[in-house]
């Protein structure tokens, strides 16, 4: 399929324009890759203007890689210590879910399983895929990928569920000299994973997903022109 200038959708950037991230006002942005320390302010709200989120890719990658690293201690270390007069017990996220399952609350076990195990993993893997697709200038279904990004944005927060559950238990279950529950380092690592992935999605710029489509169209156009010229030359000869 060949796109001509006419039916190519007008991306603001390709026209030298950009919307303000704060107030939405469209302004002229002289160059897509401004020189270092160049700063243009929005005429209406005086916020710095960027055609794309500043250093979106590298920041998103950095946050994501840190999240991957912390994911291991988050799942291996206990998130909660329960000590009573007779025994001590350490719970990881998974053992907490198993406890819920065994005590008969399957729906709750499933809920916590999805919020604490499935969501963070799914989020990290999907974000990796999205970042790679931009890195390799892949033009595969930009709309589907944008929808994936939106989905990530909406589910990320729910992984904090386990942290809050621990925080409440820790406060409530403090029967003097009987049972004391304490939060353990695993909880901190897990909270960090959730915060880091949320930040990574936050810094990710979905407009980059559409740029590669545009770039590909431009290439096709160039090729179309070259082919056209060749054909014309051949006709002359």
């Amino acid at each position, binding site marked *: 399929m060949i796109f001509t200038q006419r039916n190519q959708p007008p*991306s603001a950037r390709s026209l030298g324009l950009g919307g303000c991230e704060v107030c*939405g006002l469209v302004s002229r942005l002289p160059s897509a890759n401004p020189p270092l320390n160049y700063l243009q302010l929005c005429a209406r709200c005086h916020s710095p203007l960027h055609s794309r989120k500043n250093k979106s890719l590298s920041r998103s990658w950095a946050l994501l890689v840190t999240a991957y690293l912390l994911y291991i201690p988050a799942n291996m270390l206990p998130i909660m210590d329960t000590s009573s007069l007779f025994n001590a017990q350490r719970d990881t996220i998974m053992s907490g879910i198993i406890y819920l399952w065994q005590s008969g609350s399957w729906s709750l076990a499933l809920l916590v399983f999805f919020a604490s195990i499935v969501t963070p993993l799914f989020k990290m893997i999907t974000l990796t895929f999205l970042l790679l697709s931009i890195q390799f200038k892949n033009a595969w279904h930009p709309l589907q990928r944008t929808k994936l*990004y939106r989905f990530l944005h909406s589910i990320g*927060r729910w992984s*904090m*569920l386990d942290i809050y559950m621990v925080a*409440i238990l820790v406060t409530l279950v*403090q029967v003097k000299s*009987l049972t004391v529950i304490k939060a353990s380092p695993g909880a901190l690592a897990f909270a960090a994973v959730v915060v880091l992935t949320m930040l990574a999605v936050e810094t990710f710029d979905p407009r980059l997903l559409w740029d590669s489509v545009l770039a590909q169209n431009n290439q096709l156009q160039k090729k179309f022109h070259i082919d056209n010229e060749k054909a014309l030359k051949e006709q002359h000869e």
Partner: protein
Amino acid sequence: MLPALLIACNQCDLLQYEVKLVEGEKACCSRCNALLYKNTAPHYNQEIAFTVSAIIMLIIANMFPIATIIVQGQVIDATLFDIIQTLAMQQQNSLALLVFITLLLAPTVELLAMAYLLMQLKWGWPKHYITQAYRLRLSVKTWVLTDVFMLGVLVDLVKLTPIVTVKVGIAVWALGGLIILLTALSQAFDTRKMWSQIDFHST
């Protein structure tokens, strides 16, 4: 200067013209279907009502216990502040900070910034620090995790019920109200309408 009627989708960068909407309608990007803007009631009565009630709910949620358990004659309360204090006492300062930011600071800042913006819009006060207030709201909005906390409370209550006597506190109802009001507020408020009322030289 470019016409304010132009709009660039913030998710796919498609450049479009703003179209007039009837009250209650929403405009979505024609390429990626992201919400662009909506037409809400011209006065800010709804938004102000939601904001004020949400602030009241937030205060109630912080004053009363979330849950109470009774074990062997001991009554243990947990307010939001107790949770933060307990975590800090257990040397989990970062978790205490996280709970403080997501359940107390972020909702408070969001609602106060919103109240500040709405007062200026409603009564046509000289518009000062609009951008700062709006950006503050924008940056804390993601970190309001009241709904997640609420779910955590419910799961914990179900978990504890077979073991000890648990009572649901007043704060849980207030938190429920707060969640509904915050959702209603972001539904009722339109960013683009606000900015269209702010002229270029007053900020």
